């Protein structure tokens, strides 16, 4: 599309300043500027180069020439005209016109996206977690606690003496200096069944249903696992990682249709499960370390506790409804796989 500079011509549509009326004109690039002819009742008019702004297309071949007096000239395929007036394609249009760049960008962006997904977001989320002041966690936890303990019917039925004993075990476990950050809560919930969980900031909740089937040594082993969650700030880190991934997925799929949004939810959920399993393994390692540190404690307790929980009727019923979950879909690594290090460290098998 490179015509000889002085002979470039074209057909365009001229709009006088402020009027929507289109006039079809023949345009020629002359030595002084654009020469327009064919206007209603006018003779040829020369628009000097310095009084017009060339607006090159973004893709396509629609060229616009804005005149200083407010007139607008549209020329489809006006490239040669512009070139004849001395217009050189800018860096952007050269970049946008390069197929090599566009194709090379695909793997580069894919790689960048994948790296952000697998390492970038978790890293940034963990960094943000380190810099999150403890009172933020406190706030999140208080909101969670008031939600959990809203129902009066769920008041615990655990013997106060045992509550005190377990709180003492927890206090010994975490040591004096973090002692006041940790609080033990008891929840009577047939719906949740035998379970224990840690909220960010140090609140640990155990259900009455769990205490019914475990002895104090086994509860201590479970508490060691939950303390691991708190120490590594798993709650906050998981929340931050999950929001990071949702943002990234939304950016990748853009302002897509509803169907797209529905489908991006699934991979984010699966990745969340990956993080959860990572965190469970980390908390297990903490529990194992604590149980192995003192000869009066035994890794067997954790293995016993977990097997009892899995064998409880409530958990069995839940498993029946969910069917047999493959391990990549499970939040806790499958029990036997998970208990291998504990069994190995357990001197006398039960």
């Amino acid at each position, binding site marked *: 599309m490179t015509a000889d500079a002085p002979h470039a011509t074209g057909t*365009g549509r001229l709009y006088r300043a402020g009027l929507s009326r289109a006039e079809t004109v023949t345009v020629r690039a002359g030595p002084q500027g654009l020469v327009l002819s064919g206007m209603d009742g006018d003779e040829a008019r020369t628009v000097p180069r310095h009084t017009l702004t060339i607006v090159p297309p*973004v893709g396509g071949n629609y060229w616009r020439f804005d005149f200083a007096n407010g007139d607008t000239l549209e020329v489809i395929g006006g490239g040669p005209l512009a070139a004849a007036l001395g217009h050189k394609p800018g860096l*952007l249009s050269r970049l946008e016109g*390069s197929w090599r760049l566009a194709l090379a960008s695909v793997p580069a962006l894919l790689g960048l996206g994948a790296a952000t997904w697998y390492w970038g977001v978790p890293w940034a989320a963990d960094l943000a977690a380190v810099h999150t002041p403890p009172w933020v966690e406190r706030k*999140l936890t208080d909101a969670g606690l008031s939600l959990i303990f809203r129902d009066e019917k769920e008041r615990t039925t655990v013997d106060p003496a045992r509550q005190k004993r377990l709180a003492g075990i927890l206090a010994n476990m975490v040591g004096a200096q973090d002692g006041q950050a940790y609080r033990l809560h008891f929840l009577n919930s047939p719906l949740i069944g035998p379970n224990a969980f840690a909220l960010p900031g140090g609140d640990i909740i155990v259900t009455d249903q769990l205490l019914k089937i475990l002895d104090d040594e086994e509860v201590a082993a479970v508490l060691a696992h939950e303390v691991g969650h708190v120490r590594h700030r798993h709650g906050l880190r998981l929340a931050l990682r999950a929001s990071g991934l949702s943002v990234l997925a939304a950016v990748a*799929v853009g302002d897509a249709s509803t169907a797209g949004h529905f*489908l991006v939810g699934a991979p984010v959920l699966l990745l969340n499960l990956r993080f959860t399993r990572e965190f469970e393994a980390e908390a297990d390692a903490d529990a194992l370390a604590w149980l192995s540190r003192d000869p009066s404690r035994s890794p067997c307790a954790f293995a016993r506790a977990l097997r009892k929980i899995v064998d409880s009727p409530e958990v069995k019923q839940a498993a029946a409804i969910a069917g047999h979950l493959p391990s990549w879909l499970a939040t806790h690594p499958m029990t036997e796989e998970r208990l291998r290090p504990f069994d190995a460290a357990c001197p006398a098998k039960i």
Partner: protein
Amino acid sequence: MPDSVDVSNAADSPAHGGSHAFRFHGTGREYFSIWIVNLLLTIVTLGIYSPWAKVRSQRYFHEATELAGARFGYHARPLSILIGRIIVLVLFVPYAILAKIQSPYALVYVPVLLVAGPWIIVKALRFRLRVTSYRGVRFSFSHEAGVMSGAYLNFLGLPILGGITLGLLYPYVLHQQYRWMVDNSRYGATPLRMAPAVGRFYLLSLILVAALLLFGGGIAAIFFSIVQAAKTDGDLSSAHYATFLLIPVLYAGLFLVSVTVALWLAKTVVQRLSLADVTLSAGWQLGPVLWLYVSNGLLLVFTLGFAYPWVRCRTARYVLEHLTVHAPTGLDSFVAGAQSETGAFGDQAAAFFDIDVGIGF
């Protein structure tokens, strides 16, 4: 797609009336390289390039849109968008953080947002229309004295009234908002008008509410039957697992109804617009629109988002090429109105808070 066809269009004689379908000359292949350069430069500059990217992208779509031989224009200056974004960031990121951590200080923003909301909507509409042109004439949003009070009435007063009447007034509120936005828009000095359609808004809302109730009821019934079965038998038969399969069916039904309602709403509004003697008609059909939604979603997911340029272009092509402008006395007699500058702040604030102030196309 080469748009050499345009020459014949460009040569037609002015001033004659008739009907013109919009034409869209953009292609996914062409937009792909623009999009990818935008993406690369935005990443490399850590986001600072994004206003420039937005302008290039908007220019591509506007300039690829043809009506009666002439193209649309987009004239926003990236720098004003950048300044708008920075202001929004400084003002509202603290709010986003406070709200996320459920700090009571976030409540300070509630009256601010309530009061600023309608103002932001007016600013956003002014900016959006002001930077759009067709045949050398700019669109605009009213600068008349009553506009701000109209915004507060329609986007603050009426929604509160809608809440008081337990939502019974909401379809009317939505209708008034659309109408107010259209009636204050101008092409040059000529105001747009929207003919009332309150009955249609109520009908569509009724259909949507009925669909939501049916959907909610269906989901509740499925879970109730499962829980009952689990309690009595302790074990679930395959028939119970089969009822789970009904859930996607219910979702699909809800999706179908909401797309239908959205499409009908867009048609309702578009076909009631007028600009002097110029009117619009839309030939969008449910089948192709559904296919567009579903295929776009699948394309994006299976290409990890790389099909985005094609998705944008095929959507624009379908929407525009089934929209016809009827101009019995031609499009030549419009004149420009008084012009005034509007910064991009309102535009950005609206985008940040996801206030949908668009009117469907």
